[in-house]
């Protein structure tokens, strides 16, 4: 059994496929990011970047996908696909993949409520590997030596490296599954870098047949509601902008609200002291309460970081603190501390964040290398 298997058979050809996501005709930004990441992977292997989009009356979306980097776009257009539903989408994707002469090498979806709903169904159907919520993707070799399954031993030249934080995010794990294509991954929205848009870029647009089965109608969507109001509960917010005594007055919260509006799923928090002062209603108090608040990002503005405040926020993912006083206790606790005046720092932040959102501005590359 020591003989090495012919590994060239494992990572044969196959392109990189991105499954696009649109909601009510809105192409989701994560799709553009996936095309950015997918382009790099495809170029590394000298393969094509393909994109499958499902929906109804998709208008110029296929062309947009080409301009965002896809070489070929497959369009499944059917009124039954107007709204995302697991089973019909699953049916179309499975049929599409089975119709290909060979499976794609890599298949990428966004780590959204849709992508995380659909991708596991596809992976389970094809019994292929899927890595969730990646923050980096790459292609590289892998020398597998584990003897548990001798048939898998070997040096694999082109593997998808699906890289994701794991276990409380203090570890990064590189997850590989080169034995079967497509190698699947979902990526965290906002992480990958989209390609530069190329207006007028040419590519092939191919229609995909839609053949739904009676079983696919076991779930119907009664209503889709997109909430415009920013009534996000603190406990559910991904981003919390916290304000403290350092704001100087209740008016400071207006500025914080502007900052919060930059983010999706954000909420305003406040320290106990300013709640007591009546600057903001009680339900905004963060810190030591019965609830655990665990935003992915916490920006503490003018909060000194009384210990009971710190414990309440200790589950936050990334903590950025802004305070005039370099000795403020909040800096013992934050990941990044900005020493400065809130009224200078925050407007600048809002400005630069807006630049990033419009595709300009500085941007740390945490996506594909």
């Amino acid at each position, binding site marked *: 059994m020591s003989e090495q298997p012919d590994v060239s058979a494992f990572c044969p050809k196959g392109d990189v496929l991105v499954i696009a996501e649109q909601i009510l005709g809105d192409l989701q930004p994560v799709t553009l990011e996936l095309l950015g990441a997918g382009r790099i992977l495809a170029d590394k292997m000298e393969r094509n970047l393909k994109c499958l989009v499902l929906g109804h009356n998709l208008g110029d979306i296929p062309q947009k996908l080409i301009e965002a980097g896809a070489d070929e776009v497959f369009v499944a257009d059917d009124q039954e696909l107007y709204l995302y539903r697991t089973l019909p989408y699953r049916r179309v994707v499975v049929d599409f993949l089975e119709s290909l002469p060979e499976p794609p090498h890599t298949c990428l979806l966004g780590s959204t409520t849709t992508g995380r709903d659909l991708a596991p169904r596809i992976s389970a159907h094809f019994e292929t590997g899927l890595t969730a919520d990646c923050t980096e993707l790459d292609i590289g070799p892998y020398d597998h030596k584990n003897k548990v399954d001798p048939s898998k031993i070997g040096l694999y030249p082109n593997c998808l490296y699906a890289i994701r934080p794991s276990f409380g995010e203090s570890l990064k794990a590189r997850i590989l599954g080169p034995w079967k294509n497509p190698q699947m991954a979902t990526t965290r929205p906002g992480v990958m870098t989209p390609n530069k848009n190329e207006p007028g870029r040419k590519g092939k647009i191919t229609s995909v047949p839609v053949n739904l089965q009676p079983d696919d109608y076991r779930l119907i969507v009664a209503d889709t509601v997109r909430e415009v109001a920013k009534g996000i509960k603190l406990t559910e917010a991904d981003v919390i902008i916290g304000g403290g005594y350092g704001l100087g007055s209740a008016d400071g919260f207006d500025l914080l609200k502007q900052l919060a509006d930059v983010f999706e799923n954000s909420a305003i928090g406040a320290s*106990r002291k300013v709640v*007591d002062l*009546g600057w903001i209603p009680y339900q905004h108090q963060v810190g*030591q*309460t*019965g*609830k655990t608040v665990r935003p992915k990002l916490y920006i503490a503005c003018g909060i000194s970081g*009384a*210990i*009971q405040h*710190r*414990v309440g926020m200790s589950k936050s993912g990334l903590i950025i603190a802004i305070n005039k006083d370099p000795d403020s206790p909040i800096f013992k606790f934050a990941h990044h501390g900005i020493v400065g005046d809130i009224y200078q720092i925050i407007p600048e932040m809002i400005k630069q964040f807006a630049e990033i959102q419009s595709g300009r501005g500085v941007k740390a590359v945490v996506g594909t290398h």
Partner: protein
Amino acid sequence: MSERIEYDLLLVGGSPSNLTLAYRFLELAKESGKKFSIAILEKSKDFGAHILSGAVTNPHIIEKVWPNYKEMGFPIEATCTESNFSVLGTEKKWDIPPSLYPKSFDKKGYLVLTLSYVVNWMANQLQEKAKDVPNVTIDLFTGFAAHSVVFEDGRVVGVSVTEEAKTEEDYVYGKFTCFGDKGFISRDVIDHFKLRDNPQIWSVGVKEVWQMNESAQGKVWHTLGWPLLEGTFGGGFVYGMKDNKLTVGMVISLDSQDPNMNPQQKLQEYKKHPFIQKLINGGKLLKYGAAVLPEGGYYSLPKKFYVPGAILLGDALGVLDVKYLAGIDRSMECGYVGAKVLHDALVAGDTSEASLAPYQKELEDGFVIKESYKNRYFRWAFIENPKLLGRYLPDIAKSIDKSNAWIGMLKVGFKNPLGATKDGVRSLSLIEGKIDIGPIKYVEDYKHIIPAWVPPKYDEPQNYEKATIYSRVDAVFYASTKYHEGNNHIDEFNANTCVRCIGTYEALGKTTPCVADCTAEVHRVDIIDDVRKHGMSLENCVHCRTCEIVCPEVNLRVKPTAQGSGPDFLGL
């Protein structure tokens, strides 16, 4: 549809008394071989998580229950090798020569303990022991409080384990119920059977544990004086423990005249003293907590220690001895005695009230009540003669700072040539238990409050490290409180009463006592529609009950917490 849950013994509270009772009961049951069932209800998530004590204790009862306790891994922080009784001025400290203070303050050879660890250890021992006694089933229910007492036909038959009991489904029954709680629930038994003529009076203990750079293991200090120089009964304690840990705490009576006596801040003032500063500077605060202690002693004991279907133990009974600074051994002894009485009664199949009479008799014949009787006037002496703490002690403290405590003591004599001899002698005799003045009558602690009280001015220690001092809201962090959503464990009976009370105190330039005296930043004043109302941040509560005791309107009630909520005192 569902069955009635009944145990032979239903133990309310994972206290040293109840855990001793259960352990001793297992030993007796092993001998008798009879079948029994026991349940222990502990409101905190883990045994020990809601218990806090100094603690320095005489190991005699521990030895009696676990003769080889040291080999069994009993958690000992230190054995006291150096015992000091000192008076603090604002800058200096005077160690009183051993010949001048009561022997009860000498703690050499006693054990320094972290009571939460001890209780946790006892619960583990109990589970180990239970494996050895298959004829007894013992169920430990942590995270379940007894929320009310169930009476039937003039008998305690069990407790409710839900906050709003509706049906029998919510009850747990016991042939005998043993109350080892701190009064959260046993007071209902005492009230129901009208067992008390004299109210219980209380102190609050506030305590911090510090990680130091050096070891003070085995050193014990009890102090009078700073920062209690305005007449309030109480003092400080500093215990050196293993692993370079240090306990710093204060016990302060809640019969203070000061409506704004903030125990946590008193402890901070205590820590500003150079003597404490030297110990903790450069160290790290590990834990903070607070708990009340029943200190009425003999005259606050209920008339009966048992009622039909139940016995009272430990703090539920009120066996703590202030003169000896001893409660743990006395509580454990209650359990030890109780186990035998209950075992005998159950073996005889006699669950009558009379079957419990030997419980009281044995305690009265033993050291617990005998010493309590001997020291019955100790606490009273300071109430009867406010000058002891209001004038003499400050005078001595001042002279300590001027480097001669002896002169201070003489001055006490000179200034009051007659008084000092007359009431001084009487006070000393009461303290030493040499005279009998018959029964005494306490009044409830809150009645001592003087709303317009003006505190005397004293110099404060000046040179202290700011980083060693904690605001109340910061200190709460170190009590690791955690409450479930919807927690509502303090009742305010009448909101208008609170509005009136707040108005009364604020008109005098004071803060209302519950807000001022809270050990944990729970009570607050909210302005709602321009009215100043009482509000509570219950999520901060360390469950000490000070607010209830000092409320001048008797308008608050602290109930047992539900769902395992509350502070985490493990390590205190």
